[in-house]
């Protein structure tokens, strides 16, 4: 099995099988033709084509949306609501702004076509949709030269009959068609329409690409390889289904990391009490993704993307635009700001040799928290003198010593990370002190201990190969898809037959989509179904997700108390949305996150002496290779734990050891 995670700079590969064990590889990304780096990497890591399964985390839909380079879309919508996609929620993003600018609508006005029809929120037809009306609109679509149609009718969540009819006619005329009640069967028209349009925008593109990639990787090898695509909710789907709901792949990358985190949580060292409850902290060059898991992949349905709501199920990650590449500057008012601008991959931090801006990575280097010989086992050397020059300039402006300024940059960056961790924990009623922090990504291990101290977290875990951990996580992705249906009805015993029928209908659809003509799953087992419901007190507008079962009411009151500080059992509860997660159980256990088998190419001393600046002074600091740390041996901070894909910084007062699951486990105190 091979997992591929395409990133902005690098494409990460992880191969695992019983016979070969775990192997990792990195390949320069080829944004113009993502298939090129994929085929290249496959040729390196699996030249014989022995691995039958390739799992792919794609950023194709993400990039198409970011660069607005997707399909040519027309929207068919209820007459009178053509501008919903442009009006949005009518609010401006920044409060004190004399010149507010909103993102251009995804589809311009002349491509949003109204059709005469109307259904009310109870699903009753107020004005029927006539076939001639749809054909007239489709003629216009043809005239406009569009190839993709988004069908977005008001109240379609209550009754899909008009949407079905319009979709049938559009598909009959050969248009790629996205339908709002299929993409996101929930109320709130702007959110549903937006998801549908994003899907229409990306689906044709992803379909063509995946078909091509599937042929390319199948042709190159002897056994026929199967391609799977990671979804934003951490599940994987066959290419055709993934392309049909392309908007569900927008968070494909972070989903891999979260899936990996769940694996670590399930297999944590038996001594680690906090093992099952993890805060996953994935800090890369330009962004940081934080999520919280209690043993399963945390999902959310209230995400957003580039200023647009994106309410499809996705891993519940809180992303901040800050990472190792975030730029530090002093403002006119004398305040030190870190980010949101990033030096990105090009030119990168100053110490990469070309950048003219000081970044968090530069500060870490100058504080002695990176291996001075360079990244990736020295294959990527660092220019400390260049960074030091820029730091001296910034320190003068602040009236601080260079070291104090560098430490300040790290602390300000940490404050943003801390806010992100709070957003997924405290703001939702979870006390971070009951969790362990799982740090990965290129920079996660550098900041983890400071963040843990600030939040009162006692345990920090760094998995093996932290720099390719998201790809590793993808090895564990189940075949799965999440379905939903808005109900909007008061909860009571009388509702049970209706909810049961809804769940059954979703299960039937899941079997059809995930199994197709197969009688059972690959593993020969039934699909597994998990039922959930989004509930609220009648009259509220925001829902809390609870498992659907006998404890439904009790769970909801408890969740409300945890989230908002009070519960009111006397108030009636409303069922807003039913959710079904259908998944295919894995035939075999996936790889364990075992100790690295990847060895550095150059021989290195296991240990070296360095120095690090912390809490206002320079101190001696041990540099130790992770591969040489025997199980159980404790290393006391200050220390740097070095490995190929990342560095972990252990401050004074912290100690580290490798646990039985192969994680680097860091603790404060004795």
């Amino acid at each position: 099995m091979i997992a591929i995670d395409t990133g902005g700079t690098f494409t990460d590969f992880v191969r695992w099988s019983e016979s070969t064990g775990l192997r990792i590889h990195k390949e320069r990304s080829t944004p113009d033709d993502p298939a090129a780096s994929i085929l290249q990497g496959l040729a390196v890591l699996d030249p014989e084509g022995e691995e039958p399964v390739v799992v792919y985390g794609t950023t194709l839909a993400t990039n198409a949306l970011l660069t607005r380079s997707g399909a040519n879309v027309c929207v068919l919508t209820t007459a009178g609501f053509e501008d919903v996609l442009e009006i949005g929620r009518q609010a401006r993003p920044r409060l004190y702004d004399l010149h507010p600018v909103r993102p251009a609508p995804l589809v311009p006005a002349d491509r949003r076509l109204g059709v005469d029809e109307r259904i009310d929120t109870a699903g009753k037809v107020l004005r029927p949709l006539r076939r001639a009306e749809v054909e007239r609109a489709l003629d216009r679509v043809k005239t406009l030269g569009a190839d993709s149609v988004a069908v977005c009718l008001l109240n379609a969540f209550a009754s899909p009959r008009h949407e079905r009819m319009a979709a049938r006619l559009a598909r009959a005329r050969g248009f790629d068609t996205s339908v709002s009640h299929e993409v996101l069967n929930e109320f709130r028209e702007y959110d549903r329409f937006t998801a549908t349009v994003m899907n229409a925008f990306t689906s044709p593109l992803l379909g063509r690409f995946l078909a091509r990639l599937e042929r390319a990787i199948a042709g190159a090898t002897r056994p026929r390889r199967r391609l799977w695509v990671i979804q934003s909710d951490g599940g994987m789907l066959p290419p055709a289904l993934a392309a049909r709901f392309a908007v569900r792949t927008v968070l494909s990358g972070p989903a891999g990391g979260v899936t990996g985190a769940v694996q670590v949580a399930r297999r944590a060292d038996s001594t680690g009490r906090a093992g099952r409850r993890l805060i996953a902290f994935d800090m890369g060059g330009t962004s940081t993704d934080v999520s919280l898991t209690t043993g399963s992949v945390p999902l959310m349905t209230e995400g957003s993307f580039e200023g647009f709501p994106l309410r499809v199920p996705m891993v519940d990650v809180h992303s901040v635009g800050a990472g190792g590449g975030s730029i530090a500057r002093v403002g006119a008012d004398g305040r030190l700001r870190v980010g949101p601008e990033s030096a990105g991959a090009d030119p990168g931090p100053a110490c990469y040799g070309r950048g003219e801006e000081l970044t968090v990575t530069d500060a870490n280097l100058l504080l002695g928290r990176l291996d001075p010989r360079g990244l990736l086992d020295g294959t990527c050397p660092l220019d400390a003198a260049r960074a030091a020059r820029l730091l001296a300039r910034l320190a003068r402006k602040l009236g601080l010593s260079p070291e104090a300024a560098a430490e300040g940059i790290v602390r300000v960056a940490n404050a943003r990370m801390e806010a992100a961790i709070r957003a997924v924990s405290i703001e939702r009623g979870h006390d971070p002190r009951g969790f362990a922090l799982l740090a990965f990504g290129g920079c996660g291990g550098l900041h983890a201990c400071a963040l843990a101290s600030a939040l009162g977290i006692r345990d920090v875990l760094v998995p093996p190969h932290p720099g390719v951990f998201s790809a590793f996580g993808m090895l564990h992705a189940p075949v799965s898809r999440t379905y939903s249906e808005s109900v909007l009805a008061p909860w009571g015993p009388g509702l049970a037959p209706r909810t049961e029928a809804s769940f059954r209908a979703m299960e039937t659809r899941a079997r059809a989509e995930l199994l197709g003509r197969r009688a059972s799953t690959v593993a020969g087992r039934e699909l597994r179904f998990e039922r959930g419901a989004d509930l609220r007190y009648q009259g509220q507008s925001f829902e809390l997700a609870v498992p659907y079962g006998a404890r439904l009411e009790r769970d909801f009151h408890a969740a409300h108390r945890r989230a908002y500080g009070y519960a009111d059992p006397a108030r009636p509860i409303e069922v807003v949305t039913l959710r079904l997660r259908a998944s295919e159980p894995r035939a075999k256990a996936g790889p364990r996150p075992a100790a690295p088998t990847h060895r550095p190419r150059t021989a290195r001393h296991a240990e070296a002496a360095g120095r690090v600046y912390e809490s206002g002074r320079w101190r001696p600091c041990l540099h130790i290779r992770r591969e040489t740390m025997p199980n159980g041996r404790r290393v006391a901070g200050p220390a740097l734990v070095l490995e190929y894909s990342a560095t972990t910084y252990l401050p004074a007062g912290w100690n580290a050891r490798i646990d039985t699951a192969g994680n680097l486990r860091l603790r404060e105190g004795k």
Partner: protein
Amino acid sequence: MNPIDFELLHQQLGSVCQEMGRALQRSAFSPNIKERCDFSCAVFSRDGEMLAQAEHIPVHLGAMPASVRAAIRRGPLGPGDAVLLNDPFHGGSHLPDLTLVSPVFVGKRLLFHVANRAHHADVGGMAPGSMPLATELYQEGLRIPPVLLYRRGRPERDVFSLFLANVRGRAEREGDLRAQFAANLLGAARLRELAGRWGGAAFAAYGRAFARLCGTSMRRLLAAIPAGSYAFADALDGDGTGSGRLPVRARVTVGRGRAHVDFTGTAPQVRGCVNAPAPVALSAVFYVFRCLTDEPLVLNRWTMAPIRVTLPEGSLVNPRPPAAVCGGNVETSQRIVDVLLGALSRALPGRIPAASSGSMTNVVIGGTDPAGRPFSYYETVAGGAGAGPAGAGASALQTHMTNTFNTPAEALEHAYPLEIVDYAIRRGTGGAGRHRGGDGVLRAYKLLCDARVSLLTERRESRPYGLAGGGPGAPGRNMLLRGGERIPLPSKANLDVRAGDVLVLETSGGGGWGRERRNPKSQGRRERDLVIGL
């Protein structure tokens, strides 16, 4: 205090306000709070100076310091206490805005106050929604001076029952008030945690540093405005009781890092409800200057120290009780901003945009639904933003003193006997110019039962001005469609509507900026016909 600790505390105090807002929104019951986010949260010092705010609603944020001062003046507060108020003449702005102020104790020491303000869907009075065309405050709803709503963490039952007996939709009101209290509790808990982490001395140092930053930033931004005296005048369409146009005038005199904002010449207070209490006027003054800087200023005495504001007593911008005020907060505040920006445009022609739509377009629809349940629905409708030197104005956007969301049609129709029949951008209503003003909005509501409607709207006669040769935005329009008839409605009205009627609100476009270069006919698109037709 070193700049790093300052930045850390600054971010942490800001996130306390955000967390409060999130808790309030998600556990509230009325659509105006939960869907439209018509609320604001802030943190204050022990003596009532604002230290941090979340990016909520400008008109609230600027007027909340007066509420906290009023709560402090009421008398000493203990841990777990919370003061409720809405009296526009004792720390409030208009009656539907209920403000809850809580002291934050760390041990026995009072260190902060937290406060949140939320616009409730009803607080009693002569019409559902408490935004009527009134002629005195008593008609607008229940007037609440600062009173204890919670004592030592426990609700004051007597105050609750008095309040709930006077408002429509008591269950919703009670739920919203509990959500407001929960938000303050959360804010207090977070502040205690921060105080434990940093220590009282750090907060004292932060307060001093923040005070310095506020004062110096404001002086710096004033010093960057060319010295001089700049006057501007605009007008409200009227007070709804036949006043005719009401002039709003301001003269902004700037020099040596100080400013004097003088509203002399503004109309005297009126019989109708567009009087703006002094905190509302101050809030608009602060907003305008705040827009000129990226620095994180909030309204407190340090920020406002370099600014002298003259609000003639008994005028539209500083009325005496018991003037009716419900439209002052939402409509007059927008005009004050237009006038101040107009004055500043003479000093800073390269920065200031033309007028935005200049009205919040408030609509309340209330009555008894076909199932026999009382309902009251309030919302505001966006308009066009003014164009500026930087480019065209945005269409269909909340501008200046408000920033509330719309309610999705599917949510609205689920909860109320209303059907949205048309919701569109009014193409071509933005003012002409090198940069075109943003376009206004059309929103049409079909009534599914008899109901009572209150309208408080502006710019239905006067037009948002253009600048630097740009044309004005098109005015808005209100009308009722009844059995094939189009009945024009005034800018402010209380009316009874019948099942089957369609209420149509059209908001104004923003002003254009710069002289038009091309043939005016080639620009913009014509407004389309109503979808519902006749």
